[in-house]
């Protein structure tokens, strides 16, 4: 067993911390003892450290399967920030030359990040088999599950991947998994529940006040958003399900609230995304209008509010997104604004991405006709056909998916209509045994939030006039000796 002094020393030396956050140490110890581990830790609990730190104490490689390109990029950036150079992100964003070069030096990397789709490529599997994988990490493991909301079919092959590469230890982690999803994750990974150490912490984030407000229409919603942005302590994040809306509202807030607002979504170039993230991290931006592309890897401690302008597609997404608030443990607030129309909008968004029965039948009858189509729906069908699934199975599967997505949305609706404690509703949904002691700092079940009492009200904000610096000043700040004020 590893001694505490060694753990502490590694924590200090590589990460600059003196203390572990809740759950981190037990997960790390379990992994270092060579125990397959399944961990549920709340959002903002520093899950990445649970595989980063063991990376410095084991001799083989750490392979991390992660669902999102942006998440992979953020995690790689974090490790690079910590001074780690042996990091490889195998993503579709790699140009062919880079890909060739990095695969040629595969064995030299300590941390390898990749999507399940990439991990299932034959060439990559071969390399993984030859490598000595000390730790296989499945990040955001709820994505594995058929019952998980972000389900991707390549996750189905992870069990055979595990078998092929024979990692010394496997670690699956998530912040949001119902009991059914938990069981499914273990099954999909081929992990024996009796031999896998399960470390399950409450998903509750007590310092985030939970509120929702029903509004009559879009105009009223905008008005309310402006009011909230004027009153609330900043910084904050506002989530949208449409890129266009995020841009439109950012412009509105810029005119009416503060100039320190920017939008962020997947259509921005990587340089622009970088610029916005850095400004937000450094406190130069007060409010970000974003789609869900923002934040998975953002570790800004002092986010005081998360507002949802559109309905999240599921309680899982909601919990993930509000989890970006209050990572410093200070009081924060999550406010969901919605109108009656939002349910239909979200239902359409959820369903439109899935292939319908006509398309499925046409595809299976004439797959060649779709060879050039690069739309997600066809990609999905292609995958199932390659896995030799019959048209009947696939029809049934997608029918089920549609049903599940609507069910997830209905859970969201139930959450909003629930007259009782919102926190208790969430914990019950995730089969979390913690019992909530509801009071005025918990949620708006009995009365609307009192921002002043929560310490979240700030009626006057420092005036912000965006005056850009001249080139002489910027250059002097960057390469000379005059800091930029």
């Amino acid at each position, binding site marked *: 067993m590893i001694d505490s002094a060694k753990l502490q020393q590694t924590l200090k030396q590589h990460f600059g911390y003196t203390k572990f956050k809740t759950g981190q140490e037990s997960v790390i110890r379990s992994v270092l003892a060579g125990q397959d581990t399944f961990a549920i830790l709340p959002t903002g609990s520093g899950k990445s450290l649970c595989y980063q730190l063991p990376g410095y104490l084991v001799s083989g490689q750490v392979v991390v399967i992660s669902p999102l390109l942006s998440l992979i990029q953020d995690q790689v950036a974090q490790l690079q920030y910590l001074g780690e150079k042996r990091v490889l*992100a195998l993503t579709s964003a*790699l140009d062919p030359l880079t890909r060739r070069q990095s695969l040629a030096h595969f064995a030299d990397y300590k941390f390898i990040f990749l999507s399940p789709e990439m991990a299932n490529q034959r060439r990559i599997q071969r390399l993984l088999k030859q490598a000595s994988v000390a730790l296989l990490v499945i990040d955001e493991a709820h994505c594995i599950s058929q019952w998980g909301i972000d389900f991707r079919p390549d996750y189905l092959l992870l069990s055979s991947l595990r078998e092929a590469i024979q990692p010394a230890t496997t670690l699956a982690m998530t912040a949001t998994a119902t009991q059914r999803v938990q069981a499914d994750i273990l099954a999909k990974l081929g992990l024996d529940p009796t031999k896998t150490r399960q470390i399950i912490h409450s998903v509750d984030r007590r310092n985030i006040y939970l509120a929702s407000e029903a509004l009559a229409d879009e105009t009223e919603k905008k008005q309310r958003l402006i009011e909230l942005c004027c009153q609330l302590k900043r910084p904050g994040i506002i989530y949208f399900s449409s890129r266009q809306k995020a841009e439109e509202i950012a412009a509105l807030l810029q005119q009416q609230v503060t100039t320190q607002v*920017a939008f962020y979504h997947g259509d*921005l170039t990587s340089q*622009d995304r*970088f610029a916005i993230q850095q400004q937000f991290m450094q406190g130069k931006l007060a409010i970000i209008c974003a789609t869900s592309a923002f934040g998975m890897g953002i570790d800004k401690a002092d986010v005081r509010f998360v507002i949802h302008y559109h309905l999240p597609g599921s309680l899982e997404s909601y919990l993930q997104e509000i989890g970006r608030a209050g990572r410093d443990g200070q009081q924060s607030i999550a406010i969901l604004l919605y109108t009656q129309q939002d349910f239909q909008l979200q239902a359409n968004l959820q369903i439109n991405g899935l292939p319908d029965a006509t398309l499925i039948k046409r595809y299976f009858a004439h797959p060649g006709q779709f060879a050039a189509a690069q739309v997600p729906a066809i990609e999905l069908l292609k995958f199932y056909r390659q896995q030799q699934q019959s048209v009947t199975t696939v029809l049934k599967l997608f029918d089920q998916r549609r049903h599940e997505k609507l069910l997830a949305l209905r859970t969201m609706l139930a959450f909003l209509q629930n007259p009782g404690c919102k926190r208790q509703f969430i914990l019950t949904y995730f089969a979390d045994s913690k019992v909530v002691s509801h009071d005025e700092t918990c949620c708006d079940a009995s009365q609307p939030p009192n921002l002043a009492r929560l310490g979240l009200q700030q009626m006057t904000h420092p005036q912000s006039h965006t005056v850009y610096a001249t080139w002489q000043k*910027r*250059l002097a700040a960057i*390469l000379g000796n005059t800091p*930029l004020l």
Partner: protein
Amino acid sequence: MADYFYLLILFDQQQWRRPLALKALLKGRRTVSNLYAGLDYGLLSLYQLLPHLPAEKFEQALRQLVEAGLIAQQGRQARLTVAGQKAKVAANKQLFLPQHYAGLKFQNSREFIARLFLVTQASSELKKHNRHYFPLAVAWSTQQAVKNWLRQQNAQTLVSQLHQEWYLLFATLPQWQADYYSQFLLGHQVQPASTQQADHWFAWSSLTGELVRQDTVHWFLQQVTAAPEQFPLLTSLWQPLATGPLGTSAAQTMTLCQQGLSLTEISRQRRIKQNTLKEHLLEAAILLPDFPFDHYLTASTRRQLTTIFADQPLATWKFSQLAATDLSFFDYRLFQIQKRKAHD
């Protein structure tokens, strides 16, 4: 003036031009047909000006100009109407137009600037002895190139020399342009602006912003390549990217040709079809100032072509006119390129 007026700049009142070829040229689609169109329209320098131009935006702008009676369409070609010509003159005065952009001469300018920004950030952090920072999000190969480059530099003088070279470059620009461009620089505790933010501050459309940025980088490269002794760091950063106007494969073919290898030999050695090699030669014929036309067009071929197309305007030539001869499309196109260049 709305962004779609930019499109007028690409058209002419006399010459019928193919919108599809123009779009492909702007996006940097390197085919002989697109490059020839660029040569023929006198717009080759705009190659790759807007690689991310959404096709639908281009088409929408074209529709708007046609509906406004500024552009006339005929089949797959279009040209300016009288009103269109007037609007073009006005657009020329009101819009920001690239003055220095040379898409083929500096075809790797985007990679250059990505490297330069990362170098600047790394140097700034180095000056402050800070090792913990988020490096600018660039391709892995760019990171590697920058790492290797930095290793070769003198750490004692790097920061001050880089400072001086940036200063020289900015000082050659009007204040507004240098101010705008400097918003994207980053370093220790200095974050870059996003393009949306900077465009907003300067009240520009995203298209104008993009054109200003491209024009600025190409202006920088002109300065650097014209006076390398003043810019030793930037010169060494640019040098590996200064590949000339040809694509990589065409450049390899030309090198082998210059070594005296025949197309058959090159085809065998490079495992490339002869037709592809001929495309490379045509690309070189369009883009190189000193292409040896005589080497590939025999005197008799030239005589035949001259006779057939005698006194016929270039724009009306058709390959089908050669149906009765055994002349190839390669001969035809090469001769056409030579004539077109001579005409300039």
